[in-house]
């Protein structure tokens, strides 16, 4: 009996290790692909980085000198090899052309703002969505359910900058609950309204899919059996149904994080909050190749890590779902 147990354990461990190895390999490939894509894509944009730094009045000689210093006079393949080499051997993404300092330090400087914004927005989104979805699913086809299902139709067509502006006018200019924008009154306070704005657009589709998922579980055989066995419905909901809805909502959480990390530009702009989105936009406008590459790379790493972690948790929570 003991030996069978051990055997099963080793086999599971083996399989798990195999899975981890595969997942890591995939993640690495994704990162390499992103590096290739960003490197060539940003160089498609017309405009010379040297001119962006030295200005339109610079002499050809000084432009040439700068290009040489930045390595922009090398051929594309040479530049690419340098980029990849520096990233993998020295973990260095190069100095920002525009600001002169290392691109990594710039990313790390603005990342906390965006990360906190994304995290707050996601927490609000998931929490509110779960509550609404449970309410809708348990009050199926009653008024409450209908209201929750109709709201998304209205909010879906509302652009973020509109909702943001509305929130600013209402909560900041009129009610003075939050600052109009910026972070100088504290990061948490400054980011609350932007986070709510982001969440506002994310909640409706999430509620919809969570509700579907919950309904599926509620109709599942085991729940019906439990009900028949006289288990109180509250216990069923919290102990069994929500547990089953956990993995899918975790997945949504992860996808949401990944989607948002590169997508906060408009919110940052509307609320005058300086984060990675804004930094990216300026970097592209300045043709600051190393900075654009660094941002893309770190975003990709973030997304990949988040999805790895979620898959790992999902794997642990429900070993069946990974082969």
């Amino acid at each position, binding site marked *: 009996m003991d030996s069978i147990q051990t055997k099963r354990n080793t086999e599971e461990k083996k399989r798990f290790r195999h899975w981890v190895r595969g997942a890591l390999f995939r993640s690495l490939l994704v990162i390499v692909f992103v590096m290739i894509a960003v490197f060539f894509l940003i160089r498609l*944009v017309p405009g010379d980085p040297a001119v962006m730094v030295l200005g339109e009045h610079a002499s050809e000689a000084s432009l040439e000198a700068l290009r040489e210093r930045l390595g922009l006079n090398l051929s594309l393949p040479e530049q690419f090899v340098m980029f990849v080499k520096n990233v993998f051997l020295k973990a260095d993404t190069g100095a920002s052309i525009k600001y002169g300092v290392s691109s990594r330090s710039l990313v790390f400087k603005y990342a906390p703002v965006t990360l*906190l914004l994304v*995290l707050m927005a996601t927490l609000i989104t998931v929490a509110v969505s779960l509550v609404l979805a449970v309410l809708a699913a348990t009050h199926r086809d009653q008024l409450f359910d209908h209201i929750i299902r109709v709201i998304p139709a209205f909010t879906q067509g509302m652009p973020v900058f509109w909702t943001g502006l509305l929130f600013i006018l209402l909560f*900041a200019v009129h009610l003075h609950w939050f600052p109009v924008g910026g972070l100088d009154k*504290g990061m948490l306070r400054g980011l609350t309204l932007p986070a709510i704005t982001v969440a506002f657009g994310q909640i409706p589709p999430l509620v919809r899919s969570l509700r579907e998922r919950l309904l599926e579980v509620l109709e599942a055989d085991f729940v019906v059996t439990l009900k028949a066995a006289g288990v109180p419905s509250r216990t069923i909901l919290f102990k069994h149904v929500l547990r089953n809805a956990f993995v899918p909502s975790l997945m949504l959480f992860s996808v949401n994080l990944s989607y948002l990390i590169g997508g906060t530009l408009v919110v940052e702009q509307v609320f005058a909050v300086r984060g990675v989105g804004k930094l990216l936009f300026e970097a592209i*406008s300045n043709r600051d190749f190393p900075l654009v590459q660094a941002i893309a790379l770190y975003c990709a790493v973030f997304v990949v890590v988040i999805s790895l972690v979620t898959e790992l948790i999902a794997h642990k929570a429900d070993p069946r779902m990974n082969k």
Partner: protein
Amino acid sequence: MRAKKYWLIPAAALVLGLAGCGADTPETEDEVRFVYARKASVTSFDLHNEITENNAFAIDQVFEPLVMFDEDGVVTDYLADSTISEDGLVYTFVLHDGLKFSNGQDVTAEDVKYSLERHLEVGGPLPIEADIQSIEAVDDRTVVITLNAAYTPFYSELANFSNGIVPKDLNGLSEEEFFAHPVGTGPFMVEEWDPSGDVTFVKNPYYWQEGKPVIDHLVFRYIEDDNQLINQLKAGDVDAADEISFANAKSIADSEDTYVIASEGWEIEELFFNTLDEHFSDVHVRRALALAINREEMMQALTFGYGVTARSVLPSALRYYAGDEIEVLDYDLDRAAEEMKLSAYPDGFQTTISIASGNYVRSQEAQIVVEAGKKIGIDITINAQEIAAFRQDFKNLNYDMMINSAIADYPDANSIFAFQVDPNGFSQCYWTNYKSEEAVALMDLGRTTPDGDERHAVYSSLQQILADDVPYIPFYYPERVHGVRANVAGLVYRPNGSPVFTSVTFK
């Protein structure tokens, strides 16, 4: 389920940790802090290598030139007393007594000599155009500048921010080190600077103007979004805002909490023709389009009245403006049709107008030009390009026509003409490739003619030639509208839009 809790711990730690980062450094209460919102960040303080406003107006707080212009654009002695020789060749400057840099060190004639020479050597986007023979430091406080040829605009030109005074040899520091913590004679010093964000200035304790500046700290807050700017001003999060949009000016002016300062400026909204283009090399086509555009209506609609309809390439706020004397191609569709008939394209043609994307006003102007073109058979498509690509294209004369703006850098007519008339100059007649020997001769003459009626006559003739040849169509001179909180007094603006904070107080 248990996994969820584990995951929450780092998340909570992150939230708390990050929240801690945002805490503000407390400030002593009696220190007065003035927050000024601007739409672009300050990326450099190197006065000899800069031209754009985002940097120029910050450089103005830190460095000062020998002479300066006031709110009315009148140039006067500033850091030194000047005498100019009869023949206009020798300029003598005697520095004011006790003048100090913001680090307490005396300003000497050697510093002035070094500053101007560095500028001559660097060249830069706002070079010294006068033909300088020598710059001599005669004694500690006296500098003598000798020109090879008389050059009337020189005195005004010295008022350029790019002629500000820096310590000799940058105090032995490298350019990078010095301009990271610049030292000048201006009212403020850089306290904290994020090239992609805000700048905080602290007042210069050695400032030469008695009792100024009144405020202790000045913050340039970078706010790009227009609504955000207006709302922060309304909520009192900022004390004043640079350049609010015309559309919002009324609500700021009408509010009890805020007021606007509108200043007539040295700026021109302008349409430029590529005179190498097959269609626009034809002067009749250019004249026809100028006649087809109702500039008065355009100005009213786009500036809400905060502007002056252009009648010359020279802004009306500058001396020698001759818009009221010369004959201008004012809106007249019949005459426009006649001009088209005289041209090589009486049946019209297709062309494009280039603008920088994301600029709302330019887009509106372009749409008005499109409608005007329709009326005389010119079918125009708007080509909105990303700004860097737009610049690259027009500098290579790779465009048909474009809309852009021009601004006088210093209060002399030559500032505009040098940029827009000289085909051999850096800007090739603002990249129109317009070549008129007559105009160039007048431009040159204007540089050597002393101020007075004679110079006026020269510049009037020049403006008439430009009005007839139409290498560009000046639309209007927009005013600059600034929003200020009601409790703020003493904020003034120079006509190039540069704010002066030395007398700012809170009521």
